[in-house]
């Protein structure tokens, strides 16, 4: 039995990071929906179906990653959200990725620090979507 390729929404306002993530995911057998801004992502959240979302925490408005994560959870609380962030190094805010409470506060199932290692990301995707062995 073959399952359809999972669709992943990727949101990042850094066009290079977004493009690289998209290429990686496509090479890994996923379908990637890319959005360059929280606004574009919201349109996709409203109009498209996807299995998992990867959001950058800091976009043009400081908290738009948070807002977006909550919008996704409102649409379907079962859609896992991976929050990618450089906050600790750039804004001096640290979110304790190991703390369930802080993850819930951020609206994320997993929080990863930038730069993200692709193998780690795929591991998290597989785990959250209960894919693979």
């Amino acid at each position, binding site marked *: 039995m073959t399952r359809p390729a999972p669709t992943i929404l990727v949101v990042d306002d850094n066009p290079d990071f977004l493009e690289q993530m998209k290429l990686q995911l496509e090479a890994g057998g996923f379908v990637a929906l890319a959005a360059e801004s929280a606004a574009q992502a919201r349109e996709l959240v409203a109009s498209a179906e996807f299995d998992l979302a990867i959001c950058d925490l800091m976009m*043009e408005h400081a908290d738009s990653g948070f807002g977006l994560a909550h919008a996704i959870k409102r649409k379907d609380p079962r859609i896992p959200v991976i929050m990618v962030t450089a906050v600790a190094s750039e804004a001096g805010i640290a979110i304790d990725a190991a703390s369930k409470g802080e993850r819930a506060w951020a609206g994320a199932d997993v929080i990863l620090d930038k730069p993200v290692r692709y193998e780690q990301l795929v591991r998290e995707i597989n785990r959250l979507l209960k894919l693979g062995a």
Partner: protein
Amino acid sequence: MDNLKVLVVDDEPGIRLGITRVLQPFLVRVPESEIDVGFSIAQAESGEEAIAHLRAQPVDILLLDHKLPGISGLDVLEWVAAEPRDWLTVMITAYATIETAVSATKRGAFDFLAKPFTPEELKATVAKTARHLLLQREAKRLADEKRQVRFQLISVLAHELKAPLAAVEGYLQLLRDGVVAPGSPKAAEVLGRSLERIEGMRKLIVDILDLTRIESGQKKRELVEVDVREAAFRAIETATPAARSRQVTIELSAPERLGMRADPGELDIMFNNLVSNAVKYNRDGGRVEVRLADLGDRVRIEVADTGIGMSPEELKQLFGEFVRIKNAKTRTIQGSGLGLSILKKLAALYGGDVSVESTPDVGSTFTVTLQKQ
């Protein structure tokens, strides 16, 4: 400005009183300014008392008698020299011999007053000492400020280079790991994007070099008679490929001839900045007008675009270093954020200025006026 604090150390009450009376109403003109500085006088009758006073509160100028009842003036001088302060000491001595002079200078005295001295001699010596002190402090302040600016520049520069470097690194890794197949159209796109980032970094570095050369005055200026129109032609030619790819037209209106004395390199930097900005921040299919005018002793350069324009708030921050107006309309436009501050600094070298008028979504007009010299 605050008064300079003077401590008079002498065991003769008459000398202390005399010095106090002369210096209390005395004013010294601060070097290179319109400000006068006065003096507040404190007194000590022995070396021990002087050191106790200096420990409690720092002074600016120390008038120190050589011959004191307890520890000598030279001992006090030695103590003073060991303190990490910028105060200056004038030795007062009845025996103005070469030996005492040499000995005191070695210990860090700035100047001498030989007893007996006239009020005029006292004033002249104190004025010289005060000016030296103020100049020294001003020089230190400027050096600190420069160090601060340099540090800021380095940290912003590092930050600005980090993102494109990470981007290029990421693209190359995709190629190396075969995520993007070599030779594929995707690979060509990835290489194209990498080259774009590298070009951005190169431009940033060129801008930084221009800026630091202008600021340090190291840039060799070659002032020759130039035709301003030629610099405009060159800049338009340089910007044409970028303009064409977005169907932006560039027009030039200029008098028959427009001569001035200028460094052709500087003129090129100014025009390139103006014209490339007018293209970059334009809309597709927009228009750029470069208008040159002869104002007699000055040259006026106007570059108008039909682009995204700026709000009054954005205009206010426009000329700062590394300021890039960030909004939804500019987020895909590349730039170092240094172009306009370079432009402004160069214009200032020609006794000129840069001004801008702008309306959001209608366009901006930058006006530069330069003295022909």
